[in-house]
């Protein structure tokens, strides 16, 4: 177990290196630079800025500086917001995104798993059909459609909830809903599929033969293996949901992390883009590791090696 974790942690290093290098190359291949604007900048000012951020040094040297920055998780100041360190920007945005994503993830699991279990238990009955149709709709409706519709209905037609912004607890409701609907639907479908497979297996028949109550059979014996597909999906899903959704953050004016990737790239804010990409990659790798550990705990047949 410990060797497994250690090896995986060590493997993260080359992975991050490759991701960082690719991002560095892509950012530098894009035309323009961080100090371009609609309005001309005096040549001396441009020179000074390039010098201040080390952009006048040879590219290879800049690359090594960047690698050192990854190691220390310190990317220096943002070019666009120079009074702030990239690290501060990431952490402040992440706190909001993680809260939004955390609620959405919790809601997705709390709704998705029971719906999936119920649908599996009542396979091909009316409940199953209704649940799965709703899930199909949930997966199909993109959140840039759902977000404005929720806003129209709950904030503008009926003024029950704030239209946007991240202030009162009530302001969390619409973005969390808009973000979680597709995850609820997907988790319900995965749970149903997993449960259907497990419910046909011998050990479930044994459990039933022992005379266990159906509730115990389903919730204690079947569910543990039945949600394995959900667990493996959870790694990337959690990374995506917690790192922030650019669409939801834009529609509901949520000050999260998602937007910085886009804004940073458009502005050629090299340090900000690098910081966000590396942070995201690192987060994803850690979550995947956690998923693998959870797997071995849920399914004794899986051996970590």
């Amino acid at each position, binding site marked *: 177990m410990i060797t497994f974790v250690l090896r995986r942690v060590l493997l993260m290093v080359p992975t991050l290196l490759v991701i960082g290098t690719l991002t560095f190359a892509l950012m530098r291949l894009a035309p323009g630079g961080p100090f371009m604007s*609609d*309005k001309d900048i005096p040549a001396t000012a441009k020179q000074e800025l390039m010098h201040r951020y080390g952009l006048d040094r040879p590219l290879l040297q800049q690359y090594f500086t960047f690698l050192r920055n990854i190691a220390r998780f310190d990317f220096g100041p943002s070019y666009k*917001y120079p009074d702030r360190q990239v690290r501060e920007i990431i952490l402040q*945005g992440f706190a909001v995104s993680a809260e939004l994503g955390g609620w959405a993830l919790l809601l997705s699991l709390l709704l998705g798993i029971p719906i999936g279990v119920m649908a599996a238990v009542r396979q091909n009955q009316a409940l199953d059909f209704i649940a799965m149709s709703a899930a199909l709709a949930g997966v199909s409706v993109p959140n840039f459609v759902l977000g404005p519709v929720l806003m129209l209905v709950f904030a503008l037609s009926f003024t029950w909830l704030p*239209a946007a912004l991240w202030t009162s607890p009530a302001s969390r409701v619409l973005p969390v809903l808009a973000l979680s609907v597709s995850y609820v639907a997907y988790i319900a479908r995965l749970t149903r599929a997993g449960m259907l497979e497990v419910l046909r297996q011998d050990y479930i028949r044994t459990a039933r033969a022992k005379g266990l109550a159906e509730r115990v059979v389903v919730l204690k014996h079947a569910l543990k293996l039945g949600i394995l597909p959900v667990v493996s999906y959870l790694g990337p899903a959690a990374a995506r949901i917690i790192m922030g959704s650019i669409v939801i953050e834009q529609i509901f*004016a949520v000050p999260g992390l998602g937007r910085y990737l886009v804004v940073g790239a458009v502005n050629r804010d090299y340090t900000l883009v690098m910081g966000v990409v590396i942070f995201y990659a690192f987060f994803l790798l850690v979550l995947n590791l956690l998923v693998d550990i959870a797997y071995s705990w849920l399914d004794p047949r899986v051996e970590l090696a």
Partner: protein
Amino acid sequence: MGVIPQPPVAACETRGSAIVPDVKLAIGVLLLLTAAVSCAPATGDATDAHGRRYFGSLAAPAGQVLRFNLGTEPELRDPGIMVGQPDGRFARMVFEGLTNADERTLEPRPGQAYRWEMSRDGLAYTFHLRPRLAWSDGTPLTARDFVYSWRRVLDPATASRNASLMYAIRGAEAFNKGEARDSAGLGLAAPDDSTFVVTLAQPTAYFLFLTNYYTFMPVPRHVVEAWGQRWTLPQHLVGNGAFRWTYWRQNDRYEFARSPSYWDRAAVRLDKVVAYTVDDMNTCTNLYKSGAIDWNPSGYIPSQYLPFLKGYADYRTGRFQSTYFYCVNVTRPPLDRPWVRRALNLAIDRVAITRDLLKGSRDPWGRITPEGYPGYVGPKQVAYDPVRARECLAKAGFPGGKGFPRLTILFNTSEDGRRIGEAIQAMWKRDLGIHVELMSQEWGSYLQATSTLNYDVARRTWIGDYLDPNSFLQLLVSGDGNNRTGWSNARYDALLRTAAGMLDPAKRFATLAEAESLALDQAVYLPVYHFSTTELVKPWVRGIYPTALDVHPLTHVWIDHDWRQHEPLAEGAPRR
């Protein structure tokens, strides 16, 4: 500058289709609802006792609190180096320059200086500061702070992007360009604590408009030197304006409270200001409608809303000092021939573009400078004339467009940019018989292409910095970094230089008009339309007027809780 246009969320029409199972029905309903959201939010309008309709909620906030949308997150909070409108709005609340812009006319009014004199030759300005001025941490503010702050803007080590606005000052250009060894030659002096003397390189008629500008605001030396680049964080920042900065979360909001150390604090009526930084136009218009903000400033209403908003009493528009034009790269044949450029210019049907395509939210415009400089009469506007356009093209050697090479119109990715490009493409094909292609690039690539002259014809927008035609005509001076066409004309340069030295406003404007007429005849910039300010202001907000530069000092703004008893827009602004 540099606002990234938003693509509209959904098309306004949804076609009926054969709906099979209920899932499709559900999606259809959702799509219809989205279309309704993006097209015309028609629900929840309120009407007052006079029968005027208002856009959305009419529930005023309690107390003297103004909530508005600041727009895109400001990049810098240091007035000496900031560029861009949201940054400027921040500066105008927290800092104050020698002069202040009038709420309606933007004319200079006494600020930190209570009076000033200009020398007979127009070269020296003496500003007298108010007694007992102080920074918000209690440190006294003196004329030396102005010398320090202006010198700092010009210091190449500061890398201020707006430094060129100060080139009117004696010795400024040489110092900023690194040609002078030190700042000893700068025309800035503080003979005593309350006197600030500026010596100019040449008379500058609009100098007092410049002193309104945020680049000319003072910064607290003791704080800047203690914290360096990070002095503008909320825990460090010290200002001298009407408001104190109290809270910040990036991409969320700024909060301000009335400053107890401001010299005119008794006249400041707002206790608190909340400025959200929401850049999505649909979202901020919806926030306004739901009553979460009291003011949605110009530029943050989706363009497809504009024709629909015209009937509302809280929608205000006015002339904005900004024009939309196509610039031509004159270094690329055949665009180096003036007759070709004239043909292109005459074959743009500006009325069709603004009336039919933009649905009247913009005005057709055939001049480089916008309208509304007191005293300036610009040259006659270029008008659509397909017959003369064809003659011009024939004179250039391409009768009927024969043999004309394929040109490309470049624009930055945006829905309106594409639609206007397509319209002009069709006009040039119909009237001149030439084929042009359209190319869309994202913002950074587009800037790179236009500033390195790597294009044929490109879309551009310019916003005036100060209320003088010079703010636009300066662009076309040979070698100016904002010229971006490669055009260079000795006579034009000479006219601008002569005008700059003139003290008589009538003569100066006449010279500038002659220069503009020359540039129009040479068809370097092909004007398309004139921008308007378009804003939504709740009826209880008093003291915000449409202004030509979309600058709105909030010092005297207040919340009128009895607005229903008062005549609507009593202080208000003329609406078109």
